[in-house]
């Protein structure tokens, strides 16, 4: 008998080279891992095997016919030839069949130059066709504003169909008819609704599915690629920004198995189209007659420093404040807080949508305790107040993968939210706190309270907490799940009772021995906390002597001088128009890429900020991964990267420590302060203690922010807005 160690190894030979591989793998995986090229169309490493293109036929010893490498498992003693005369003949025959109906329009087709069919036809295609009959012509389908179709080019590999079923979570595309009459399309004529639908453009091995906004604007070989990080959610998807002549032409995913696998969301893919809409291209100062007039950088900066110095001289440092976008880079957050603290103010915040700040510095940073990959291995997932599928599409994909592996998902969410994965227990409510308290009370009644001192809060308190059947089910699933996680989303963080919800979620995770995972708005909320852009502490959690005020306080009681950094105030901030307008009552410095209403009506100085893809920086994603990126194109007009603007502001105000020459230098300073090594922040242990009351238990839950309304760039992307309109039938409110 063989020993157990040897049983886990299979000896095979590919092209007379002997390999030792793990059993259970398909031939094509082994071949790919060992650098043996096998042509393929339908096989994709992230999708199931369908084996319907037959391009990967290889010769296997003792097999009567050629076998498809993508659907043949390795077996001991197997001998495979991928380039034997028989294999090549089979592959060439398949190629000839595939080319029968494929139009010869490569020079016209946008896929030309990056087309699998074109590339493989160079190696395996004949130089002439033997086919004399009419070619098949298929009517094009309308897939919406993002994906263009040219269905005559389709070779029926079904990658898009499988993507819809396996990754997108909605089986929207399918094949109808058979043989020569087979067509790929949506079953009913409608646009694709998946928030990941753009990935089928990359998956399509031919030019049947193409990017509609990119159509006919450039060829693949003219583009220069720059690695970057998507700025619309906290996943930190790796992207490639592709440019031509200094202009962003398109965005495609970059593979990173630990973060976004091979996918990106449509938001990340098509937001670049809004990057140059209504841009501010030169510094502006409001003149005496109340109009914004263009000026030069020096004059604009002088105005800022002069006014701020006057305000501070009369009212002290705490009369100024700063509000930053949660998608600012670490460098920008750091320099902004350094600038404000240098002026003597701790009034700095980026938590634009948050309403309840009563927990103050007690709360830990919004961070996932697990890595994104670990989410897939959870057995029980409890989602609290999160439209995860729209907020963080690729994090939601990990949750979905967990459910496919058998995980139990329970949610507490408003009624309108639906997901593309199975949910076992769903509490649909308008009020988050009572439901969460119910779950906590159930866990407490099972004697899991330990030394958390929750009795006074949950059982003896003035408020009577009802424990319902669903709450018991959720408690069951959390306690029984071997790996269980609690996921606290943006809706919970934007709740009027946020501090108690955070406490209850922490209590639940401690009692049920689950991990506590928090993911909120913006691309860099965790980076904002680490870089110190909060009123409570500066970079590296260095406590400040006197706490500053938070964003809600700054809106209700506006500081005399305020810096708005990358914030489209009237859309990004919580609160009604009149409240936002009050922010404009003081001296407003808008450092922004875009002209918006508040800037236009109230800003006293407008400094043009570099937009999407124009500046270098670093985002810390939800799991604490520090990912740096460089600029892909030059900033538009007179716009400058945020870290440069803030550096000059700092030196103009004669503050110390602004002698920085590159964004790397800024980053290294932040990293040293935050004690970050290996580009990964570890979960922090917070000193948590039970709250004494449940706060505003009757607080109504806030509405989720629609998928394509999350930030200024996305809101300006015309194709995304058109798609949103199509999906909601013209109604703006989802």
């Amino acid at each position, binding site marked *: 008998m063989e020993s157990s160690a040897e049983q886990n190894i299979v000896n095979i030979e590919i092209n007379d080279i002997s390999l030792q591989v793990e059993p259970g793998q398909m031939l094509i995986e082994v071949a790919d891992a060992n650098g043996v090229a096998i042509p393929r169309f339908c096989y994709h490493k992230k999708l199931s095997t369908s084996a319907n293109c037959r391009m990967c036929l290889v010769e296997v010893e003792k097999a009567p016919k050629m076998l498809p490498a993508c659907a043949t498992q390795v077996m001991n003693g197997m001998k495979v030839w991928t380039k034997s005369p028989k294999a090549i003949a089979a592959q060439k025959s398949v190629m000839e069949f595939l080319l029968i109906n494929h139009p010869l*329009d*490569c*020079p*016209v087709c946008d896929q*030309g130059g990056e087309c699998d069919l074109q590339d493989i036809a160079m190696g395996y295609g004949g130089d002439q066709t033997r086919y004399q009959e009419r070619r098949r*012509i298929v*009517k*094009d389908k309308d897939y919406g504003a993002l994906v*263009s179709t*040219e269905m*005559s080019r389709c070779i029926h590999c079904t990658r898009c169909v499988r993507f819809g079923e396996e990754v997108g979570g909605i089986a929207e595309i399918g094949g109808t008819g058979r043989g020569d009459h087979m067509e790929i399309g949506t079953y009913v004529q409608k646009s694709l609704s998946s928030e990941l639908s753009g990935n089928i453009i990359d998956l399509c091995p031919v030019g049947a599915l193409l990017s509609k906004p990119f*159509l*006919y*604007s*450039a*060829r693949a*070989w*003219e583009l220069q690629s720059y690695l970057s990080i998507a700025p619309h959610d906290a996943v930190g998807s790796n992207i490639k920004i592709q440019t031509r002549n200094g202009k962003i032409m398109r965005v495609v995913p970059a593979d990173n198995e630990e973060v976004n696998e091979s996918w990106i969301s449509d938001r990340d893919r098509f937001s670049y189209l809004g990057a140059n809409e209504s841009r501010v291209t030169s510094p502006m100062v409001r003149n005496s007659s109340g109009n914004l007039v263009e000026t030069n950088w020096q004059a604009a900066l002088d105005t800022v420093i002069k006014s701020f110095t006057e305000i501070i001289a009369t009212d002290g440092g705490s009369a100024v404040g700063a509000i930053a976008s949660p998608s600012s880079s670490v460098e920008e957050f750091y320099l902004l807080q350094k600038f404000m603290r240098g002026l003597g103010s701790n009034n700095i915040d980026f938590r634009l949508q948050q309403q309840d700040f009563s927990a103050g510095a007690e709360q830990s940073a919004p961070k996932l305790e697990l890595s994104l990959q670990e989410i897939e291995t959870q057995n029980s997932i409890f989602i609290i107040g999160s439209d995860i599928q729209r907020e963080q599409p690729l994090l939601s994909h990990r949750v979905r993968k967990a459910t496919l592996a058998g995980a139990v998902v329970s949610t507490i969410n408003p009624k309108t939210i639906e997901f593309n994965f199975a949910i076992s227990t769903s509490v649909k409510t308008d009020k988050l706190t009572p439901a969460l308290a119910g779950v906590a009370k159930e866990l407490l009644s099972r004697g899991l309270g330990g030394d958390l001192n929750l009795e006074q809060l949950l059982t003896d308190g003035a408020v009577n907490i009802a424990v319902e059947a669903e709450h018991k089910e959720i408690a069951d699933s959390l306690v029984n799940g071997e790996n269980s996680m609690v996921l606290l989303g943006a809706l919970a963080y934007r709740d009027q009772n946020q501090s108690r919800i955070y406490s209850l979620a922490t209590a639940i995770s401690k009692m049920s021995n689950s991990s506590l995972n928090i993911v909120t708005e913006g691309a860099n909320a965790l980076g904002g906390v680490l870089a110190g852009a909060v009123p409570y502490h500066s970079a590296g959690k260095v406590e400040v002597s006197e706490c500053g005020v938070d964003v809600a306080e700054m809106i209700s009681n506006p500081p005399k001088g305020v810096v708005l950094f990358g914030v489209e105030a009237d859309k990004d901030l919580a609160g009604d128009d009149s409240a936002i307008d009050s922010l404009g009552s003081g001296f407003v410095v808008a450092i922004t890429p875009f002209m918006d209403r508040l800037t236009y009506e109230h800003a006293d100085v407008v400094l043009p900020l570099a937009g999407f893809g124009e500046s270098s920086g670093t985002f810390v994603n939800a799991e604490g991964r520090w990912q740096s990126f460089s600029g892909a194109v030059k900033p538009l007009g007179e716009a400058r990267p945020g870290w440069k603007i803030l550096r000059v502001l700092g030196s103009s105000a004669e503050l110390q420590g602004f002698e920085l020459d590159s964004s790397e230098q800024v980053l290294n300073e932040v990293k040293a302060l935050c004690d970050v090594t290996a580009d990964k922040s570890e979960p922090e242990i917070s000193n948590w203690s039970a709250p004494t009351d449940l706060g505003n238990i009757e607080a109504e839950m806030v509405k989720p922010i629609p998928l394509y309304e999350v930030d200024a760039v996305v809101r300006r992307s015309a194709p995304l807005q058109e798609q949103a309109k199509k999906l909601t039938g013209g109604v703006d409110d989802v």
Partner: protein
Amino acid sequence: MDKLIRLIKIWTLWELFQGLGVTGRNLFKKKFTLNYPEEKAPQSPRFRGLHALRRYENGEERCIGCKLCEAICPAMAITIEVAPRDEDSPESKGEVNGAGKSHNYGNRRTTKYDIDLFKCIFCGYCEEACPVEAIVETRIYEYHFEKRGENIMSKEDLLKIGDSEESQLATDLEVDGRFR
């Protein structure tokens, strides 16, 4: 013996007369010097002269903006900008040439097609790469520039040459066609 033959050759000026023989033969041979510009050399149908952009018989530009000529040009003399063709034009609906089988077929069109004749080395690769026989090289080799910038042929210039040379171009392409 060899020494003797050499001495005879030297003293009879044998090698001198041998050389004068070549001169004399060529003196009475038919001349191939041409009296340019009154006389011109014959040209092959493959002659690679000034470039032109051709049209279809119905007047539509042949060029589909695929940029293969730009990509293959070893001297990087070609610059092309493309844009989708106006969706509502009769061309794009396929009413003109019957080619429109779908709403976006052949939709890419050049908005700029420049050839820098200072860079061009007249290798003919652009002509070879063109899938629709749009960019061709004519038999024209007599041209000059008087001002800076005239060396850059714009799309309009190229189409104008194409229009005036079309009959010659069509004949040449047909003659050469069977070798392609």
